[in-house]
């Protein structure tokens, strides 16, 4: 048994303190990173609870249920940020990536404490796969929201579509890595393939448009 709450406090305190001395953009990213770790802990609580009441067992829960819970938990802060603070496109993407990175970091910390970090090769693969996977799923979700907002089609359908897509991606990754051998290898490569696929729409949307004084809310609709 690990004391995940204590680990969260231990990692978060220096990060939170560092925010005082950081410029605004960096502070936003660090805040999102800490939020991502907190969300990871909450998702683990909910996953554990569902595992208990459904009687599915730990492995089945982690393969079938966790992707849904984790993606919803990561999605909620982004959605709140989007509607409560009306940020520009250039602000949403770093916050989403921060939440994804924080989530992946905390998950990896807990994994290492549970299973040990003796096998450097495996830890490296896991770090790259889980790290990239959480970031890619968050980036896909945020990109979907940015695109939908930019073209004034930010309907519940587009929002839920972006969320479902990231759940699907996460679920496929969990399913593949749950089986040893070839499926696991494909699973570990999946996040990198996802990152490569996201590159085209990411470049096309030019999320850094904020630098030129263009925000998501100011861009005129295409139609």
């Amino acid at each position, binding site marked *: 048994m690990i004391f995940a709450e204590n680990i969260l406090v231990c990692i978060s305190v220096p990060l939170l303190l560092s925010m005082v001395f950081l410029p605004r953009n960096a502070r936003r990213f660090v805040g999102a990173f800490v939020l991502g770790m907190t969300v990871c802990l909450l998702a683990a609580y909910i996953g554990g609870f569902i595992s208990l009441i459904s009687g599915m067992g730990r492995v089945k829960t982690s393969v079938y249920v966790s992707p849904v819970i984790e993606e919803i938990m990561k999605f909620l802060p982004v959605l709140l940020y989007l509607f409560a603070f009306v940020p520009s496109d250039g602000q949403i993407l770093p916050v989403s990536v921060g939440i994804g990175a924080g989530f992946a970091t905390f998950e990896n910390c807990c994994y290492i404490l549970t299973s040990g970090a003796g096998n450097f090769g495996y830890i490296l693969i896991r770090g790259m796969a889980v790290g990239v996977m959480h970031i890619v799923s968050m980036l896909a979700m945020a990109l*979907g929201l940015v695109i939908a907002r930019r*073209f004034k*089609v930010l309907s519940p*359908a587009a929002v839920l579509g972006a969320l*479902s*897509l990231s759940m699907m991606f996460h679920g496929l990754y969990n399913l593949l890595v749950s089986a040893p051998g070839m499926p696991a290898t494909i699973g570990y490569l999946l996040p990198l393939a996802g990152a490569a696929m996201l590159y*085209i729409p990411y470049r096309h949307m030019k999320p850094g448009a904020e630098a030129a004084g263009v925000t998501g809310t100011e861009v005129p609709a*295409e*139609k």
Partner: protein
Amino acid sequence: MIDKIYLVENAIFDIVLVAVILLSLRLIRRENRSMAAVFFAFGGVSWLLSGIYWMAYTFIGTGERMPFAANEFGEAAGFLLYGSALYSIAKKDRPFWREDFLLPLLIMAGYMALWIGWSGEWLEDILTGAVFGYYLCRCCRALREEKALSRAEQTGLGALTILIPALEGLIFFVPEKAAAVLDTVCYLMMSVILVCFLLLNIRELRRRGQAGRRMALAFSLFAWAGSCMYMSAGIWYNLFYFFAAVSTVLMLGAVQEEVRNP
């Protein structure tokens, strides 16, 4: 045998989807007016991931029926994003007509009752039904807005689509022999509607009609192929799955036309 056919079909559909996604991404990169293409590409990715998930489960799984899993969300995302692609060409200032959601609502209620009756999976069926209902609403609206169907076609296809769930529902209450006949009649009716939609698509292609109309028809063909798949089993399922793959190619053509010549 049928499982093997399905596996091969799934693989073919996935290959079609990869090609469709790549072409959509090229469209996004080249053209400025690419909203429909963005949603279409993301929708294609959802279907592709869902297909891969199913294949992975088949190879890795223990052979038991797949539980409520992420691939349901993949299909939901596919419908939502395809629906959003249709929304992107909709005339935003025009309110929803009553007919836009009355017919899909009626059909969806029938489907959901049937699905629950067949499988007993309440949560799964209600979730899929709600999302699929939204997609049907978008298709109906696009068909009406683009005037893709004549009055006679609307009435005929509308009546048949309502009749099918009603007849399928009857199967629960009639003797076995009559049920088998009714079942075959339903499959034939589904196929007739599917062929009708395919012919309408071909007619529009030959006419070199408006991009919006082509999109409405192609997306409706996909919707109907999906409805038929969700209501069938065995070889019929394989047949309807083939139509879904064909409709995806037609959808790509329509989206390309919409993006290039709106």
